[in-house]
């Protein structure tokens, strides 16, 4: 992995998901080496967008696969996901995404 000061930016957009409705924005994780921060905010329209800003350049195909699986697990609409990544592994990325979705879904029964 080539670490550089320049961040790589990636954009994903999914449609056709189930609208989540209004929710309070949620922030999980921290920006630290091998970790990431995920911010989830409501969107007006029926899309689900993910903005990735990562210090680990050159992993776009892996991000794409991770996002595809995320959409499969959580087919949601009406949210904007912003990710600040510092070289987290895909497992940690998926975990944080799941945690963020759990946050906005409210406490577990």
């Amino acid at each position, binding site marked *: 992995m080539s670490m550089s000061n320049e961040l790589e930016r990636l954009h994903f957009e999914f449609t056709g998901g189930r609208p989540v409705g209004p929710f309070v924005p949620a922030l999980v994780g921290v920006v630290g080496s*091998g970790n990431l921060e995920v911010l989830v905010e409501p969107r007006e329209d029926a899309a689900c967008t993910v903005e990735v800003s990562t210090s680990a350049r050159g992993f776009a195909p892996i991000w794409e696969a991770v996002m595809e699986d995320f959409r499969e697990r959580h087919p949601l609409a009406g949210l904007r996901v912003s990710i600040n990544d510092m070289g987290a592994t895909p497992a940690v990325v998926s975990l944080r995404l799941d945690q963020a979705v759990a946050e906005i879904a409210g406490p577990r029964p």
Partner: protein
Amino acid sequence: MDTRVTRSWDTRATERARRLSRAQTALGASLDNKRVVAEHATRLLEAVIAPFDRVCLEGNNQKQADFLARSLAAVDAAVVHDLHMVQSVLALPEHLDVFDKGIATRLDFSFSGPQGTRLARLVAQRRIQIGAIHTYLELFGRYFVDLTPHVALVTAHSADRHGNLFTGPNTEDTPVIVEATSFGGGIVVAQVNELVETVPRVDIPGDWVDFVVRAPTPALVEPLFTRDPAQISEIQVLMAMMAIKGIYAEYGVQRLNHGIGFDTAAIELLLPTYGESLGLKGKICKHWALNPHPALIPAIEAGWVESIHSFGSELGMEDYVRARPDVFFTGRDGSLRSNRAFSQAAGHYACDLFIGSTLQVDLAGNSSTATTGRIAGFGGAPNMGADARGRRHGSEAWLKAGREARNGLQGARGTPRGQKLVVQMVETFREHMEPAFVETLDAWELAGQAGLPLPPIMIYGDDVTHVLTEEGIANLLLCRDDGEREQAIRGVAGYTAVGLGRDRKRVAALRERGIIRRPEDLGIDQRDATRNLLAARSIRDLVRASGGLYRPPKRFRNW
């Protein structure tokens, strides 16, 4: 026909006597019975070591005969040269300096850890001929067959005037080295930290020891098995939950060995919390072949552990071990008696399960820690992580694994027998996004570079029974052909190229059959995998759990 040869039958004894008398001449009045002054150590070695000798320099996983290593590296290469070094571990620069200086040319060993890169360079420059990279038991075995040392340079804590040695908790390899050398007609030189009137206990009888040198500084001992719980990640907690619920509970694993690392430390720290919540106390993890891992303190204190036999010790655990003699093997003096040879034999034959991490796994399940340009060796993992084909004792775990592997087979391959559980536990990506799953192990390239007859595979794929990643568990015992095995491995390889290359339909079918099990298939909710489950979340917590008996070293390797 008379086929008897005409020869003398005591050449080794004669040669030994000749060398002892040469030492007497070289050291003169400064030789006090067996005691040699430190300033004369190199002179002693020049007197008792001959060119082309096999020399065992005690280099262990933890303690090092560092003073004798320096003394050997200082001999005159015109007098002592072309030695064949046989030793467990290459840990110190001096272990390779002897090759740089032409004092030694051949090497048989097990593990080279920190010296792996320099070793690869020296091999490439043809300064070192490697006989083989052994497993510990194999190397020890060869000490009694065709690699018996002519001279052994060992280390102990103290010696009395008869040469009786007290090793303290880090007995490690000393008994096996001295036994082979002494009874094989060789010469044993020991460095000690202290000369005493009476040793606290006799770890090595004095009449097996020829010379004792008090080293100017205490022998180096490194803490290797200390892992700071503060660095255990949620992913490691999740994997530990899967190991406990999906493997330990499933097979009823009573006897086991844990490899070194944060993954296994997480399991140890989850026993008194998560394991307890599953009602597993008393049902799993009762007997261990294991160094005194600080991370196991909470489980011991919670009453999970009945016995632990150790390969070596761990700095800081001395007082804790001394206070728990029901659990650890201890001498009449109260301190730990470790023994690498016996604990390796126990780990190989008497344990139902080995679980450890690795750097690379290929599509056949072969596992390797070799990387290009670095000859690291194996240490104990291949003995622990290999099915003990000679085993007969039928524990529940062993029999169940055997049934899974042999179900439906006929003839010799279907004859009922058990199998050891060998689990490779890896996150799909290591640090810096290095994939743990690869099409081809770096070991193949290394074999080419170093002229090895085989790729240095640490654990052979046909011994690996389970591959555990954050994505789930692949049970290779249930795979019926190479194609299934490959897809089972791809099916837990996450977003690595190997994982992305899976046949999704076949992986789904393997999941149907329980060959692949995801956390949810095991009834594990990822959201429960938090650090709050760890019985200790810091070194300080471990100290507290030990009632203040554990005294962590100031510095420890924490990789």
